[in-house]
């Protein structure tokens, strides 16, 4: 930002306002004001011209009745809900598929990257083949391929594959029993949240203790217990009576329970594989960047191959891996907008597709959609930068 490092020590030679710092601030302020002015002029001009052309403008439509249905949603939604709520449903769907994709693609990427460097011929060749095939085909084609591949072998609901009479697999998706409760469900979530916080605290404490005293503490198992037990305790205490809604074939489809639609599965598969292949190459590059001497030194200390990888190679490789991997995560988020071609109701399909069309307010809907991608992308970047600064070489 400012070039305050170049300010020489000692008293300034001229009047105060000539100081480099003040001058820098003034110039930046002027540029900022000009930018804001330009933006304001653009917005004002847009509103003026839209009015003149008789095109509706503004965000009032968000409170209007949407009137269309969405087949996959994490919160209550019906055609009687507003466009604003449809927007939230779309955002959540995009976040869901992106989060699922990022977790799975990262895991797959590490497996592929490490696998490709394996001394086992079969493993390294398999990883290389997968990476090179997946990386060099357009994502859209892969998406359509997986959609067809997921759907084709599945039977119609009337011939659905029954999994113990509780869950059913058909070309309408995987339908599983869903929990239903009239009680204060938030208590379960609150217990889960408290457990997570406690587990995190235990983790930090045990790490500090190990560094200071060298004593080990089974933080992993204790943490797991802290996460799992409190929600179960709340459920077991009977304050939140829980029953299971078991899907039943009624007419055309299964009624009740929760349904994982095939569109989501196909999208998840395609995004995971595609990004996983790129992350695999990033991981391989990162591992190769660790000097060979480090591995040899670790081996000389008698570490097992797994421990060499886990304790010596990967921590050093992470410095190289994180920045390009962040890019892959962001790409995955943005690629999830391809959902619209296979009929998964993500943000783009619901909001800048259906909503745009019904309201005709292209600038507002596209603007809001872009803002969501921007905010989420920046949030991912921010998180990964934090992690990166933690992993970066600590100058001692």
């Amino acid at each position: 930002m400012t070039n305050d490092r170049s300010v020489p020590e000692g008293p300034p030679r001229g009047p105060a306002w000539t100081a480099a710092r003040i001058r820098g601030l003034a110039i930046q302020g002027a540029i900022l004001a000009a930018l804001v002015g330009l933006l304001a002029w653009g917005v004002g001009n847009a509103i003026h011209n839209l009015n003149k052309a008789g095109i509706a403008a503004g965000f009032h439509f968000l409170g209007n009745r949407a009137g269309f249905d969405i087949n996959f949603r994490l919160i209550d939604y019906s055609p009687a809900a507003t466009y604003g709520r449809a927007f939230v449903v779309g955002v959540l769907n995009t976040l869901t598929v992106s989060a699922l994709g990022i977790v799975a693609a990262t895991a797959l990427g590490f497996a592929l990257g490490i696998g490709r460097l394996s001394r086992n011929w079969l493993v390294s060749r398999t990883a290389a083949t997968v990476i090179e095939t997946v990386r060099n085909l357009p994502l859209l084609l892969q998406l359509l391929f997986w959609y067809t591949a997921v759907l084709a072998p599945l039977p119609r609901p009337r011939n659905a594959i029954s999994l113990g009479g509780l869950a059913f697999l058909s070309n309408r998706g995987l339908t599983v029993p869903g929990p239903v409760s009239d009680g204060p469900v938030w208590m379960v979530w609150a217990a889960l949240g408290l457990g997570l916080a406690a587990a995190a605290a235990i983790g930090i404490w045990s790490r500090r203790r190990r560094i200071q005293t060298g004593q080990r503490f089974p933080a992993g198992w204790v943490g797991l217990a802290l996460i799992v037990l409190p929600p179960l305790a709340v459920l077991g205490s009977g304050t939140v009576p829980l029953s299971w809604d078991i899907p039943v074939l009624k007419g055309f489809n299964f009624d009740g329970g929760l349904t994982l639609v095939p569109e989501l599965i196909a999208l998840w598969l395609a995004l995971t594989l595609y990004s996983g292949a790129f992350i695999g190459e990033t991981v391989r590059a990162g591992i190769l960047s660790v000097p060979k001497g480090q591995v040899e030194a670790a081996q000389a200390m008698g570490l097992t191959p797994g421990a060499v990888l886990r304790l010596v190679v990967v921590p050093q490789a992470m410095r190289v891996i994180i920045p390009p991997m962040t890019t892959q995560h962001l790409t995955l988020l943005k690629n999830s907008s391809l959902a619209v071609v296979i009929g998964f109701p993500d943000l783009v399909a619901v909001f800048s597709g259906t909503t745009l069309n019904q309201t005709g307010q292209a600038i507002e809907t596209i603007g809001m959609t872009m803002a969501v991608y921007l905010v989420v992308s920046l949030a991912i970047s921010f998180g990964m930068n934090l992690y990166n600064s933690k992993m970066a070489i600590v100058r001692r």
Partner: protein
Amino acid sequence: MTIRLAVVSAALSVAVAAGASSVAQAGVLDTVKQRGSVVCGVSGKVPGFSAPDAQGVWSGMDVDYCRAVAAAVFNDASKVTFRPVTTTERFTALQTGEIDVLARNTTWSFTRDANLGIEFVGANFYDGQGFMVSKQLGVKSAKELNGASICIQTGTTAEQNIADFFAANKLTFKQVVFESSDEAAKLYDTGRCDVYTTDTSGLAARRTTLSKPADHVILPEVISKEPLGPSVRAGDPQWANIAKWALFAQIDAEELGVTSANVDEMRQSKNPDIRRLLGSDEALGNERWGLDRDWAYRIVKLVGNYGEVFERNVGAKTPLALDRGINQLWTKGGLMYAPPVR
């Protein structure tokens, strides 16, 4: 998503550039004449309405409407540039002047007239939304569709219609929404959905492209009014008039018995209505109308009357095999009624 980018940049250009209003002032007719062709936004994917054949020759109801406009303006029905637009981008394309006329089996509705800065000029096909199901299911009525999965294309009035219809009949449904009608119909064909829904004319057109057309049946219920018609950008009355009367002239010609085959002799007809329509005597429009007095003669001569256009594109001898139904002339019990040329 390049399409969406195009929509945004087009939307922003109409909004930010002050040019939008100056285009309107210059007049679409002058722009069109200068360019030498009418740019017509069409679907390009609906047989019978607008689709190119294997040789790249366009045909369909909407295509012939565009040709009628070109015939009236240029005395040459081929001076049309067909621009396929998706359901999502169509209105923005019209608002920004990317296209001069939108003829894309688009439903005329209040919100579209009121909020989009566009103007519908009439209906060239009265349609309604229907359902297609596989015969195997043994369904006889749409009211038996409780719980059905429905494949549907995004960006149409159809999404709201089915939500309304199922709610009114206390039924539930699960919709799968696709960006293109091709994909929606393909997935219906594979069995992902029990039902495919769109306008009944679109169902008839789609059925011809399914793997086994005979296995599918269109249910009797028509759940909505879908007056499909061309639209133009609001704010240019001269161009709106031309777009309006290009359609009316075809309907009037059919009512008066004027066809592309007999239009030359009809010019000498004693019937004053026919003489006025074909411009046999004095010109009825002044300079602000903007076209020569034989504009309607050119339309009928080069494109045909409404009945000819209907039979050629969607009538009994075509794969769609649609009845005239409510698209019959008002004199024969239908809805096709055009104001007189006088």
